[in-house]
């Protein structure tokens, strides 16, 4: 076992019990105070805004799929879509969903179909709003810009794995005055998100959608476990710096 494997194993040995204990604690009803993230409040409002204006809500899940390094980003986008799909279904106005990796297509279709339950016609109509645009980033951006410009979109949510093409799509939304919530994990893309979106989910905020929007106990618990691990890692870094400096 090499050094990386030993460190990863140690990480898991500490993280798994922390995750379990925090999850159980929340399940028993001991809820922590979650810090305010304005983007989640904005997400609660975008569906209502789209319904009130009679225009469409667009959700972009980015370039990621479910078989690569950025699967967690895609799943974060799916969590947000799940919430928005539930909200939209009540008004019978499913969101337009665009994605670049076809492995995400069945998952996104399942998410938008689910709120319709036995209403097969409604579910099929919602699934038709999920569109695979293209696997190439430029082609995907061009397709999304077309959707934003030509399909009466009023609110735009872009959460997932993105590259530089985020700016093309984000600017297209900003210029049309759409309500725009963006989220990305890549530090190189975050300035583009910050510059174009009304509200932003920066880095790990993205993964908190299940806790903030749906209030799932295990998701809230995993936020507590992440915080605990962060303190452990920071303490470890400081301790190593002190040891290295002194000895």
């Amino acid at each position, binding site marked *: 076992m090499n050094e990386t494997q030993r460190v*990863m194993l140690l990480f898991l040995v500490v993280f798994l019990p922390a995750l379990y204990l925090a999850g159980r604690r929340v399940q028993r009803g001991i809820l922590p105070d979650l810090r305010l993230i304005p983007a989640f409040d904005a997400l609660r409002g975008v569906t209502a805004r789209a319904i009130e204006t009679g225009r469409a809500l667009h959700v972009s899940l980015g370039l990621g799929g479910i078989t690569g390094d950025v699967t967690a980003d895609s799943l974060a986008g799916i969590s947000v879509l799940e919430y928005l799909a539930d909200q939209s279904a009540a008004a019978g106005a499913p969101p337009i969903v665009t994605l670049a990796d*076809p492995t995400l297509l*069945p998952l996104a279709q399942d998410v938008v179909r689910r709120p319709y339950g036995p209403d097969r016609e409604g579910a099929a109509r919602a699934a*038709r709003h999920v569109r695979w645009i293209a696997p190439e980033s*430029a082609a995907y951006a061009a397709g999304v810009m077309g959707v934003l410009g030509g399909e009466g979109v009023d609110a735009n949510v872009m959460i997932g794995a993105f590259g530089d*093409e985020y*700016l093309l799509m984000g600017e297209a939304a900003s210029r049309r005055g759409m309500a725009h919530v963006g989220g990305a994990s890549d530090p190189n893309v975050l300035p583009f998100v910050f510059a174009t979106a009304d509200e932003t989910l920066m880095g790990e905020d*993205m993964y908190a959608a299940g806790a903030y929007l749906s209030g799932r106990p295990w998701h809230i618990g995993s936020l507590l476990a992440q915080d605990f*691990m962060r303190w452990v890692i920071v303490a470890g870094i400081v301790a190593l710096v002190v040891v290295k400096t002194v000895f």
Partner: protein
Amino acid sequence: MVSRILSTVVAMTAGLLVLANFFFYSDPIGALSLYLVRTASVVAAFALVLGGVNVLTVHLNKIYSRDKGWGYSMVLLGALLFTLGVGFLTGGPASIPMQNIFETVLFPLEATLFSLLAFFVVTAAYRAFRVKSFETGLFVVFGLIVLLGQVPVGAMLWDQFPVIKDWVLDVPAMAGARGILLGVALGTAATGLRVLLGIDRPYADRRPPTTDR
């Protein structure tokens, strides 16, 4: 119900086997893990067919119902079928006609679109540089310092601009980026573990929501 349990068991077993292979060297686990990863690649390739069907369905519907921009859908489907036909008739994506299509149509179009980024950066920066709060004020100050440190005229105005720019990029910006990456790594690990332990089941059939969220 049975499909939910079955899919959860299959997903957890596959995930735990691949994870075990990362930590422990063992021929049977390694072989099984490699088989599972290859199977995932094959399944992912089939997703491309689903994507193709989705493109056809969306744009045929658009043409049929004469939605706004239906002419573009015709162009898209025409280009799709033409490229597919050329690929089948000439021996796949490595053939010379296909390479010509990529090099003379696709790559120039992509380059054209990305060249617009320079102009989009200017308009986005203009919007971002409007001071609305303390944070945007800091954004503007540091943005201007980095800009002046990056261009020759900045060094002509004050020779310390490049030095300050390097410090800004190497110390606060790097520290911020590492903090974000640490959080992303923890979030990714938490998401992965939730899926691995069956807490999150994005692959399983879902029930319609029964409670008001």
